[in-house]
């Protein structure tokens, strides 16, 4: 199980990385390598050049803006997991990161790598879609920004520019009063999920629910946001939540494989979404986040 031959370059700047990518259409970016290297070893990926972005200092930063926490593409998942900005402002991501792989793969795997790899069961992509994060690529000298809800177009398929380098992902900062929930199920605790769900709910100071974001992952070609607007004007009782989420899941196409039937994925994603919404509401009620 040995990779095909390729060249390796270690640029120091994003510009340099973009140059290398532009110069070889069969080049690929190497970030943490936790998904790419197995594909190389199995010869499922056959690049002519690997552009290792691990030494571009800019890509390892966390930047707080008015509305976002921007996480550099090369930030390791384990680093993000304990980062105070993430804990404070992206609690949903903090929760989701606990489910990503194992300690050893989180130590190497990156936030950007997971987004760019676009595995349908990836927790980080699910959070990005649920919160509608901004995904910024540099292509040549231009920045290209995608809404996460548009970015993923199929299993391992995105709108990323072929010669672009993912620079950062901007996750919207959670409002002051906010609750989150994240659930996934897998045959073994750390496997690729058979179904996953994320929810973030925010409220005004007087306790009125203002925004509900719910997404499900691992069920189809990519994670999807659910249409749950009806919840905003509802009583938010258990029955209502269940009804709205069943309705929201009704049109979601789910896939079948050896490990789970399509019906299972739909049933369980719905159930997990319900649980995630309830968790989020409970957090608000308990004031866990305040």
């Amino acid at each position: 199980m040995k990779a095909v031959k390729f060249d390796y370059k270690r640029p120091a700047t994003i510009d340099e990385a973009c140059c290398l990518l532009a110069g070889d259409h069969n080049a690929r970016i190497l970030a943490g390598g936790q998904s790419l290297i197995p594909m190389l070893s199995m010869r499922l990926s056959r690049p002519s050049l690997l552009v290792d972005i691990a030494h571009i200092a800019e890509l390892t930063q966390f930047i707080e803006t008015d509305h976002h926490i921007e996480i550099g593409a090369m930030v390791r998942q384990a680093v993000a997991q304990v980062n105070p900005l993430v804990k404070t402002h992206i609690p949903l991501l903090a929760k989701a990161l606990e489910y990503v792989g194992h300690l050893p793969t989180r130590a190497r795997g990156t936030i950007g790598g997971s987004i760019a790899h676009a595995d349908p069961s990836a927790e980080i992509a699910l959070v990005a879609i649920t919160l509608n994060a901004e995904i910024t690529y540099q292509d040549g000298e231009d920045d290209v920004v995608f809404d996460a809800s548009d970015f993923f177009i199929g299993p391992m398929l995105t709108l990323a520019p072929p010669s672009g380098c993912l620079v950062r992902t901007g996750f919207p900062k959670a409002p002051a009063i906010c609750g989150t929930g994240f659930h996934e199920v897998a045959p073994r605790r750390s496997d690729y999920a058979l179904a996953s769900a994320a929810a973030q709910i925010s409220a005004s100071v007087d306790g009125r629910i203002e925004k509900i974001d719910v997404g499900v992952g691992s069920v189809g070609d990519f994670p999807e946001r659910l249409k749950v607007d009806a919840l905003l004007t509802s009583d938010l009782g258990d029955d209502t939540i269940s009804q709205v989420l069943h309705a929201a899941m009704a049109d979601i196409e789910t896939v079948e494989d050896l490990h789970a039937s399509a019906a299972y994925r739909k049933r369980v994603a719905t159930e997990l979404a319900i649980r995630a919404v309830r968790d989020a509401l409970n957090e608000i009620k308990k004031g866990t986040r305040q």
Partner: protein
Amino acid sequence: MNDVSIKINGELVTAMVEPRLTMLDFLRDVAGLKGTHAGCEHGVCGACTILYDGNAVRSCLMLAVQVDGQEITTIEGIGGNFERSGELGIIQDAFCEAHGLQCGYCTPGMVLAAEALLAKTPSPSEDNVRDAISGNICRCTGYVQIVDAIMLAAQRLGNRNDMLLPNHPSTQQDK
């Protein structure tokens, strides 16, 4: 071919390698360190675990060129000066005491996962231990005696640290 130099267990190893060479193969075939084992070569089993930046990581999911200019620790860098004396580190000794192994193939990875855990979490719960080794598959033991071994090691490491404190009975007696 690329030039790489990597500090392994404190010693610099320099070689010309193909970029496609994994760190696992570099350790085994270039550096001649056979304690790091190939189990799956696709990042699932943990037999190839090494320490990098204090974390247990999978050497089959790293290219040697990625590690150029950096430092890692393998099982050969753990414990006492066993090359001459056969002296084991406390964690290794606890694995022997609890028989936390059978065939020994996953064992270096398990020991390193335990090293990484106990360096950060000196008094782990059993859940912490199970989490820390959950990325290392063992087919012999059912993990029970591995968990026992790591808990025993934590206890012994804790006792050792206690003994370094000035008020510990063992140091009192010496006075």
